[in-house]
């Protein structure tokens, strides 16, 4: 997928990856890679500033934990606000996807946008 297009949806991608439960950066990237079928080709380091930004916006919370290796690890989790934001973005994305799908396939969108 095009880098710029991907960056435009980075917040939603990260929030969605964390919807399964709290995770550290590496696990978030792994989750994104697996669930997207390796479609997203962003430098892995790009995810960390996004995590910091989403935390600053109050959509994520984080805390240090000790990994089995003994290293300190920052674990991120969705906040209530983050869950709400993800639900909103998911709804908008579905409408958008249906509309574009309808245009490209020549069919009507499944649902009428609100």
């Amino acid at each position, binding site marked *: 997928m095009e880098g710029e297009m991907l960056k*435009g949806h980075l917040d939603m991608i990260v929030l969605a990856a964390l919807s399964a439960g709290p995770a550290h950066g590496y696990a978030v990237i792994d989750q994104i890679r697996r669930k997207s079928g390796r479609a997203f080709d962003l430098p*892995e*380091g790009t995810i960390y*500033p996004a995590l*910091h930004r989403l935390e600053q916006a109050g959509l994520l919370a984080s805390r240090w934990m000790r990994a089995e290796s003994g*290293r300190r*690890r*920052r674990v991120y989790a969705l906040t209530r606000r983050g869950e709400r934001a993800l639900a909103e973005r998911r709804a908008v994305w579905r409408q958008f996807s249906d509309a574009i799908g309808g245009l490209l396939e020549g069919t009507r969108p499944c649902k009428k946008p609100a």
Partner: protein
Amino acid sequence: MQEAGLISDYLESIADALSFDRSLSRRVRQEVEDHLREAAAADPIGDRLEAERRAIASFGASHAIAAQFAIVSLAKHTRRVGAAAIVVIAAVFAAMKARVAWYTATQWAMSDDVRAVSAIVGSIDRYAFWLAVLLAIGSWAYITGRHIPAVFNPRYRQQLRRSFLLCAAAGGLLVVSVISDGALTAFRLSGAEVCAGFIVPLVSMTIEIVCAGVLVFQIRAMLRRATSTAALLKT
């Protein structure tokens, strides 16, 4: 180069680039180290040095990643300075009011010689102070209402710049107000015999000067951060 050196050098490079914000630099270093070591350990290639090289390559160029962190840090600091400006101005206001209340309670009158000058200085003080209040609130409200974009764009750069200018103007006006207060206090104290009653005006003036100093320091730190971020974005 030794195996441990590859990741260490990379971490050093990111930490150096973010040295203007020590806590961020430390946190990023630990997070990135955890990531790179885990990625290298998970690589099936077997050759550890090559695995580390691949982990670093997948992570991205250190300066590009550091620049993204710097933007988030700058945005955070800009918001914080906006809020700090309001708190500092409120503290200056409290000190100012305490001093005036003390003058009233002790019926400490100003000598007639300086009354005309003090009226002019008093007007400068009032206008500068209330303008500083408006600009500080404006700066804070302006940047708090802005979403930090995933990709740093000229529009957000402009928004940060505006917020900085508003905050710097508020800081400048607060300094003018505190200097005016200092002059008014000097007018009031001049001619009077040194006594224990001097303590309240002097302490309240010290509080004002410290508050203004804190704000100027914060604005200066924000400027340094902005300069470092701009330099990172250029590389």
